[in-house]
């Protein structure tokens, strides 16, 4: 009798029922070819397990352990502070008040830079980051100027703020990712709300990936927190150039362009 190779494979993996097992074991006794094929399946299984087991003995990076315990996540190379917490602390509020529609993002991203408020007011002539009346982080004049005017593909090197991806969020607001260069190199996500740009996520930029990587994030190396926030909040596809121009003409107002 002949047994299909898929059945022999399932036998080697312990995935067949009793009846099939009996048939295969009878075939094994009679047919050396069946024995050889099963031995080959088992050897391959062992080889695969052996080849990839080294990673199990490596120490697990602390940032992953922290992430699994729900402790403030630390993307590689970045100190991290919870944005909502920083906002509350700045406003002297008790915990518990959160941005409604952004709650998942605030939690998922659970973001932030080394002492979030250390950024506030830095670059004082045209501050990049500032705080609003209730302690929320806002784009300062320097960053707002770039977010409002600069198209993603026209990165002008002179600006401290480099805009990245633009999209319409599920809330209807326009949002843009940005990178800040210089000694405080960081990336973030800002959304245009109530006439200004509110910063949803700000995280220290990742160091450039090693050149052995074939999975390097795009050159901006957005920290995972920023990427996760975009994935959580984006509605559809990012804006193309024409979409950005239209949004800019409408002053990035949620009611424009739709």
């Amino acid at each position, binding site marked *: 009798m002949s047994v299909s190779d898929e059945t022999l494979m399932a036998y080697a993996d312990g995935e067949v029922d009793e009846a099939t097992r009996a048939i295969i074991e009878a075939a094994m006794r009679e047919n050396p070819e069946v024995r050889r094929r099963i031995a080959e399946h088992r050897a391959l299984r062992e080889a695969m397990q052996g080849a990839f087991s080294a*990673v199990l003995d490596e120490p697990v990076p602390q*940032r992953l352990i922290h992430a699994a315990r*729900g402790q403030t996540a630390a993307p590689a190379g970045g100190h991290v502070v919870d944005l909502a917490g920083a906002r509350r602390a700045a406003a002297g509020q008790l915990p518990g008040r959160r941005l409604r529609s952004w709650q998942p993002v605030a939690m998922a991203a659970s973001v932030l830079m080394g002492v979030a408020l250390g950024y506030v007011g830095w670059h004082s002539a045209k501050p990049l980051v500032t705080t609003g009346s209730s302690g929320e982080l806002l784009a300062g004049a320097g960053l707002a100027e770039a977010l409002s005017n600069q198209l993603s593909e026209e990165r002008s090197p002179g600006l401290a703020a480099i805009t990245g991806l633009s999209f319409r969020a599920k809330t209807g607001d326009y949002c843009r990712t940005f990178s800040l260069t210089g000694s405080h190199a960081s990336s973030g996500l800002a959304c245009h709300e109530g006439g200004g740009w509110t910063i949803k996520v700000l995280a220290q930029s990742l160091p450039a990936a090693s050149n052995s990587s074939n999975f390097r994030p795009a050159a901006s190396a957005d920290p995972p927190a920023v990427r996760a926030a975009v994935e959580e909040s984006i509605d559809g596809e990012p804006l193309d150039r024409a979409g950005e121009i239209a949004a800019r003409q409408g002053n990035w107002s949620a009611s424009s362009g739709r």
Partner: protein
Amino acid sequence: MSTNESTETIQEQIVALLPRLRRFARNLVRAPHDADDMVQIAVERALLRLDQWHSDARLDSWLFKILRNAWIDEVRSRARRAKLFMPEEAGEHVGEASMEREIDRLSVEAAMARLPQDQRLAVSLVLVEGLAYKDAADVLDVPIGTLTSRLARGREALAAMLRLPEGDFS
């Protein structure tokens, strides 16, 4: 998941699974640092969705599935970014790029990297992670028949590659 205690218990179970999550991630993304980034994203997502996990389901399968979905999102958003603002990198490949690269020595890892993605994931979940066929099929969101046929083709290709004398590849 109604009490903090049970959440903490699950968090510690996730901590215990981190080595396996890292191993699975490296079969999705070869660069270790990037693979760890995927694990971190997946774990953060899992904690947000703990209410979606049912304690009768296997925690490892559930996490593998979140990791695999996070990776798919990453590949998609990467493609978007490449299109939008990194045109010079648009030709860079993800994951399977290694298949076309020169391979010095046909190690098991190298052979694995040459497999098409669907087969590599099936092999990784069943042969490396030791999942049952039905659990692996669930992680990949495919019927069990699809899983077994990918697994069979992946195995066949691996066996053929590993049987070749090294000198035959140059």
